[in-house]
């Protein structure tokens, strides 16, 4: 702990932590991973792209290697908006990198890649399993060059296992299907529904980064790198909580329950005067608080609802949700939140509106905490971006720049790592290597 941090220990917690995490002072502090060199070979793969993004936010120097035509993911995003021809999905999550083009189909391109990999700490790729191995630049070959390399491979089915061969490309929807998440989302009498964002990619990236940093910690002791194999399906499957144990223990196959819940209730969305809102109070004291806030204390003693076991039968859930909605429709979400916050306890009600994104953006809380930032980028103009997810008092993560065109940093990186001056760059360019 620094002297500056230890001073003022007498202040209230909230005041102290707010100052210790002050988003305006991020640039004064060091970065957790700024000794790492990461090669981002993601190619048409959002999970691998995001893996490098997380590491870059935490301070790593990330070099994104794209083919001379650019990563196909550059076009990804909604049809009705793009900037300079770049899709918004790519622009939103390609921050803090150095953008280099290299043709890995050419011998000279592979030589340069090997030169970078020899010095890299982490390499992230998501080609079809075995593709880079076939080019002589997979983990088998690179670890001979750099035994300390942590090689992260993202794919739909993984690099080993009975179904690893001849696997198709990875998509978020198919990841969500394999993981079991799709099967439990939506109404029981309709088709399952996917999560609206590419959540499989975010989960895959979280696991790939967790795997990479664990491997780096072990490397500190062993001096050895290793390979990390991560699929979006398994990334989400780990989030399916008790589903497979419930089947093992009882034979019960968890299905879709719509706005109801097998494990906890009330834990649901209800109508309010101005839209929808989430409300929960499933433990006994919290359910008591909910009944009190609703002005219906007798419900807590109703034999249909008086224990967690009673509250989680489907029949009672339907009845209870109807009781809550009968009350909630009379108030706006803001009015109910005020009632919830005014309740003295015991117990606590968890309540909040179902926000369209525009309303989330209108809430001062997220702006004060630095969750969003408007940047004026020299290449892409005015951008509204989501910021790193973590707060860290000593090594806060940060946004440096949003994105750059393919090959924007090629000359810089080749100069830095290979001593290539302008003449060498021109030669490589004329040979189509970069």
């Amino acid at each position, binding site marked *: 702990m620094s002297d500056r941090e230890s001073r003022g220990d007498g202040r209230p917690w909230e005041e102290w932590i707010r100052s210790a995490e002050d988003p305006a002072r991020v640039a004064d502090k060091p970065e957790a991973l700024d000794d790492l060199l990461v090669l981002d070979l993601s190619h048409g793969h959002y999970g691998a792209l995001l893996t490098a993004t997380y590491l870059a936010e935490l301070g790593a120097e990330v070099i994104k290697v794209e083919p001379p035509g650019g990563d196909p993911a550059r076009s990804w995003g909604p049809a009705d908006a793009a900037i300079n021809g770049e899709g918004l999905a790519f622009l939103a999550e390609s921050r803090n990198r150095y953008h280099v083009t290299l043709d890995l189909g050419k011998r000279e391109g592979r030589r340069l890649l090997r030169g970078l990999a020899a010095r890299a700490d982490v390499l992230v790729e998501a080609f079809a399993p*075995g593709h880079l191995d076939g080019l002589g630049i997979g983990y088998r070959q690179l670890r001979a060059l750099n035994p300390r390399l942590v090689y992260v491979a993202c794919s739909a089915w993984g690099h080993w296992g009975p179904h690893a061969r001849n696997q198709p490309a990875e998509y978020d929807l198919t990841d969500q299907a394999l993981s079991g998440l799709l099967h439990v989302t939506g109404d029981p009498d309709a088709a399952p529904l996917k999560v*609206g964002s590419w959540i499989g990619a975010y*989960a895959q990236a979280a696991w790939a980064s967790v795997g990479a940093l664990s491997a780096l910690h072990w490397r500190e002791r062993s001096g050895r790198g290793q390979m990390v194999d991560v699929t979006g399906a398994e990334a989400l499957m780990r989030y399916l909580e008790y589903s497979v144990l419930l089947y093992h223990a009882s034979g019960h196959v968890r299905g879709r329950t719509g706005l109801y819940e097998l494990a906890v209730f009330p834990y649901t969305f209800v109508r309010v005067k101005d839209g929808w809102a989430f409300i929960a109070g499933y433990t006994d004291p919290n359910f008591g608080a909910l009944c009190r806030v609703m002005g219906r204390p007798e419900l807590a003693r109703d034999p249909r609802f008086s224990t967690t076991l009673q509250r989680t039968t489907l029949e009672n859930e339907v009845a209870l949700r109807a009781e809550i909605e009968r009350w909630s429709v009379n108030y706006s979400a803001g009015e109910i939140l005020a009632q919830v916050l005014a309740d003295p306890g015991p117990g606590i009600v968890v309540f909040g509106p179902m926000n369209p994104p525009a309303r989330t953006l209108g809430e001062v809380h997220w702006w004060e905490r630095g969750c969003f930032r408007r940047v004026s980028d020299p290449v892409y103009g005015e951008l509204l971006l989501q910021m790193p997810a973590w707060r860290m008092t000593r090594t806060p993560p940060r946004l440096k720049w949003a994105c750059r065109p393919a090959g924007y940093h090629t000359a810089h990186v080749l100069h830095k790592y290979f001593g290539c001056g302008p003449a060498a760059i021109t030669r490589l360019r004329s040979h189509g290597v970069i």
Partner: protein
Amino acid sequence: MAIPRDYFEWAAREFDPARIHEKPEALKGIRVLDLSVIYFGPATADFLGELGAEVIKVEVPGQGDVTRILGNASFFWKNISVAFFCANHSKYHVGIDMHATAGQELIRQLAARSDIVIENFRAGTLEEKFGIGYRQLRRVNPRLIYVANTGFGQWGPFSKGRASYDGLAQGVSGLTSITGDGDAPTKIGNYLGDWFGASMSALGALAALRWRDRSGEGQFVEMAQCEGLLRAMDWTWLYAGLTGRDRVKVGNGDHTFAPSGVYRCTDGYVALVAGTDREFQSLCRLIGQPGLAEDPRFKTHDARRRRAHARELDAPIAAWCRTRTRAQVEAAARRARLSAAPVMTARDHAENAHFRARRSVWEHEDPVYGPMLEYGPAPKLSATPARIKWAGKPVGFHNELVLKSILGLDDGRIRELYAAGAIGRWAEGRRGAAPPEGWKGEGGLE
């Protein structure tokens, strides 16, 4: 260039699951003190435990973590809810009453000998109510990494008095408003905000650990579940900033890839996406409609992803899937190098050779609970594979082991702590907290 014929054999040897337990662990020697409840905090600790950290889970004596009793009657098995186990593997379970002064002192002593503390109380609670917050614990351990998980964060207008669950995070982040179709909310079926938040929180802890490896300095790391989900909404914010509009809900469609959908088969549903021209042409041949690939409505990617056009593609794909099983669709799609995947259920997971071989579905035998089938670690590491060692245990199951081996307390002192109520085990007969019927001390350690 072709994929070398021996590549998959080589990879299978590197990751051989039969050798998992003989390989070293990435986080061996890292001790995590888990003061948290339900899923968000316990899962953060669990994920570090899977990678080799030693996790000590502190619970309220008597009843323990509320997940031990969650759910309707179908959840109860061997005197406990199945909901407890997924965030509590291979931990050491101690029952400590944090309201007792001696209990708080035990927490301070354990924190002094730990690398990482994880908690998910409301902001400031541990400091103000129990005297074991970050500022107190770092005094006894300046190298400590203190991880605090909350709904809205440690500070800011919403941090005061507001509790959070995953479902709330889904709603307030905006994720619910971009999920599903129609006006009514689609609640995401798992506790996504907890689980995704937990893996991000574990990532924050590991970044802090790397900084400590370099500098010797600990720090405070916080992760808020609402902020985790709003971070995971890809281009939602950029689009809103640029156009002033909210992105439109498209159900199982995709703004970027078309066609994209979920289709009924004879034995369930299948998800199918053809996101490139090559995949689309392949799909048209597969479903016996090669002419569609030449139709101006579908010929180019930009034409296909217009909502009206994408919807027109649903009917011929649905018709083709309807008469086939999920396995038939998947196999035919694979041959055509197309992405189609069965919408898998828990039974499918239990029976799937691939996920079992990769230990994503993990079978093990526990001395207290017997044979278990659980979801295994997500990332596969070749040299230091993550693993499950044992299942979650009754409240206070490892009191003696932990207090003797880590704090060096003798039996006399431990008896005093029990007598004073500072430590405890399960309450006799308390569902979820106590061992199963017929337990005769298996696995117990004194």
